């Protein structure tokens, strides 16, 4: 099972246009009880692209992310219809959801520094998946903290509590943790909500580099952030996917739907 959802090796330089599809979503419908959260969304997310999802609150963005890594199983009230193909396999029929989740890194709106040391925060997931060797863990921790642009700030206090770092540091710690299992997909849910602008810019630079190694789904409230980072962007509104297109087109008038223009230009939301 583990091997069967592994993606084919793709050269990092592959062009977004030609890159194979990483995540294929077909007619995805999500309900909470009788309350629809997302209806009939179909989209393709390609390897090595940053795919932006913008939209106001209650648009269904977070529900979408939860369905991708099957976190919806923790909410009995959440009903999902449609297909989500991860490397061509429908995640809804995967038996080994743990392997799926370890291939998808997630970063939440609010930083979650687990109440353990900085080192243990990053080493937790590799340890859970069976890596015991201290030298291997050291390499993973340094590499992940480095890629999350946090290593220089914490390298002298890896033994201090992760939950006592500043908000911006904790968010980068969360990213380091999400990277600790070499995920194929990184999903970020409004990561900059509790982070200062300088840290936000640093994380955005990190994401631009990570794009070479993985597929990134960026859910954001900040239209300009999507513009800075995302190659293509989808606009969700009230559970509907209003528009999907090249991000630049959303800003240069190539928009088909008036609601998208209103949102992008700040007339609501």
């Amino acid at each position, binding site marked *: 099972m583990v091997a069967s959802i592994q993606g084919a090796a793709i050269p990092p330089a592959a062009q977004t246009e030609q890159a194979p599809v990483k995540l294929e979503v077909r007619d995805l419908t999500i309900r909470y009880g009788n309350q629809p959260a997302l209806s009939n969304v179909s989209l393709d997310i390609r390897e090595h692209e940053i795919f932006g999802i913008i939209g106001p609150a209650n648009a269904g963005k977070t529900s979408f992310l939860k369905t991708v890594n099957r976190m919806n199983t923790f909410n009995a009230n959440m009903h999902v219809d449609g297909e989500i193909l991860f490397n061509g396999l429908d995640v809804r029929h995967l038996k080994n959801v*743990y392997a799926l*989740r370890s291939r998808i*890194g997630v970063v*939440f709106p609010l930083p*979650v520094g687990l*109440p353990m040391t900085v080192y243990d925060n990053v080493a937790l997931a590799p340890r859970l998946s069976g890596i015991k060797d201290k030298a291997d863990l050291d390499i993973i921790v340094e590499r992940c903290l480095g890629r999350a642009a946090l290593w220089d700030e914490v390298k002298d206090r890896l033994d201090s509590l992760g939950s006592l770092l500043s908000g911006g540091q904790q968010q980068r710690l969360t990213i380091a*943790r999400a990277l600790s*299992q070499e995920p194929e997909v990184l999903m970020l849910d409004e990561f900059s909500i509790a982070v200062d602008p300088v840290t936000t810019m640093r994380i955005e630079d990190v994401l631009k580099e990570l794009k070479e190694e993985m597929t990134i789904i960026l859910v954001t409230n900040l239209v300009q952030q999507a513009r800075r980072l995302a190659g293509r962007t989808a606009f969700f509104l009230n559970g509907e996917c209003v528009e999907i297109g090249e991000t630049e087109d959303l800003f240069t008038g190539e928009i088909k739907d008036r609601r998208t223009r209103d949102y992008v230009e700040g007339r609501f939301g």
Partner: protein
Amino acid sequence: MFETSELNIKNQRVQRLFKILFLLMTMLLIAPVLLILGTLIVKGGSVISIDFLFTSPTDGMTAGGIFPALLGTVWLVAVALLISVPLGIAAAIYLSEYAGENWFTRIINLAIINLAGVPSIVHALFGVGAFVLFFKFGTSILAASLTLAIMTLPVVIVATRESLQAVPFAFREACWNMGATRWQTIRRVVLPNAVSGILTGVILEVSRTAGETAPIMFTGAVFFTPFLPQGIFDQTMAMSLHLFVVSTQVPGVPENLPYGVALVLIAMVLIMNSLSIAFRIYLRGKKKW
């Protein structure tokens, strides 16, 4: 701009009145505690000595010490804890971390609340029927401790469940998102951060268990035995029952003796409670979020 109006004055007066009222209520609460402790120390303090603690009663329990009862209570509490702590913690973990919101969970919760509300004498009779007679443990430490364990189970379950619930949900979600199973999450993140609350609950249970009389008097504790307990199938004396006996059942007991027994019993409980408080303060200092 900041003139005081009639209404302001009235509000402040009412506010002061209520503050004093609540303070009085609080003082009332402390009074019985101080009175009990004071009486016990004044009347029973003179009885306490090393000999009193470590020798057996003599002269038809009108003289001598309390060692068999003291040791018996330690036995009863220890065996009861061995049974109820693992059981209670396991149940609490299930209820907090695994159980869904459904009728089954609701029934279990209702059962726990009701178990906490059952009078101790009813537990005693249940203990006689179930452990002494049906399981044929006889009147023994095992039967008495099982009865005590069942009686105090709700304390452990509720304390554990609450301290598990106090661990932020975001920690669990973060672990699940990394592909951790529920048990890995509980083991690595939830339990280590709930340990202080769980231990507090356990220590509270100790003080409750040590003081109970009814559940043990038919199931394992005896009026008097010259022998110290050697194992869980022995009968034993116990502090709480011994206090009842020397206070009401034996003629010719010096007036100070029951006070001395009560003082030792209450000291045991207070020491356990102080330990619990000290431990909580220690762990709070290490609070990680």
